[in-house]
């Protein structure tokens, strides 16, 4: 129940904030895109850390460790690229909405225990990766003007799609 509502809330926040950006005149700029990508990655690392700390389920902990490792590797690549391109990531409404929704989600997860936590964490991982993939495909990749940034986002999309399938697999095992 709560998962559905929180996911819907996250979706509403995310899409409400990206909708204006989707208009041609307000396409996110490369510095904003870099900030959104970095924020999205960091959110998943924070969630993974919480799961590693709280979960007793080996599959869930292994999954969380995979997420932490991959997203840290992607973030390092992203930071190396913005440095090389001399781009300063710029905070924006989409990043703010993502961070706010993630903070609320973490607070909800922190109150859960055992199997309830595991299920809520994994279901949120499926939903979260789905949302980020949607944003990458429809907004961030098409808006990126620098070829290297676009290429990094395209690889990021493949990684996130892999994570979504991985999360779905773990969710299936928890049932």
């Amino acid at each position, binding site marked *: 129940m709560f998962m559905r509502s929180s996911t819907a809330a996250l979706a509403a926040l995310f899409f409400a904030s990206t909708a204006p950006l989707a208009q041609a005149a307000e396409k996110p700029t490369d510095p904003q895109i870099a900030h959104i990508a970095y924020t999205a990655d960091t959110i998943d690392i924070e969630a993974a850390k919480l799961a590693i700390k709280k979960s007793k389920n080996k599959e869930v902990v292994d999954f969380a460790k995979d997420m932490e*490792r991959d997203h840290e590797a992607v973030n390092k690549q992203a930071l190396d690229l913005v440095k090389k391109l001399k781009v300063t990531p710029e905070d924006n409404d989409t990043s703010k909405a993502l961070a706010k929704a993630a903070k609320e989600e973490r607070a909800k997860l922190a109150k859960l225990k055992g199997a309830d936590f595991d299920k809520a964490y994994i279901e949120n991982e499926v939903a979260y990766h789905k949302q980020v993939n949607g944003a990458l495909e429809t907004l961030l990749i098409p808006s990126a003007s620098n070829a290297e940034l676009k290429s990094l986002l395209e690889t990021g999309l493949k*990684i996130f*799609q*892999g994570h979504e*399938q991985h999360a779905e697999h773990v969710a299936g095992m928890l049932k």
Partner: protein
Amino acid sequence: MRPLLLAPALALALGASPALAATIEVTIDKLVFSPANVQAKVGDTIEWTNKDVLAHTATVKGGWDVMIPAKSTGKVTLKAAGAVDYFCRFHPNMKGHVEVAP
């Protein structure tokens, strides 16, 4: 004299199979196995070279499970004939296929 003559022949016969075994190279770049389809023989080795900054695996359901760390390699020696599909456990959207001849 006879045993002396036999020894190299025996060594050759015993060594024949590994000597003919090939190593098949597969590259991983941006979450893609390339080539995605390979043909091999029993005794051959597949070696994956991972150019990504992410760890991957080459995993067959109910079969081999090879860890391929970031910027590193991993390998498996094929022991059974048959066609197998493999994937990466961390990114199940990565898929490959091996046909192993006897």
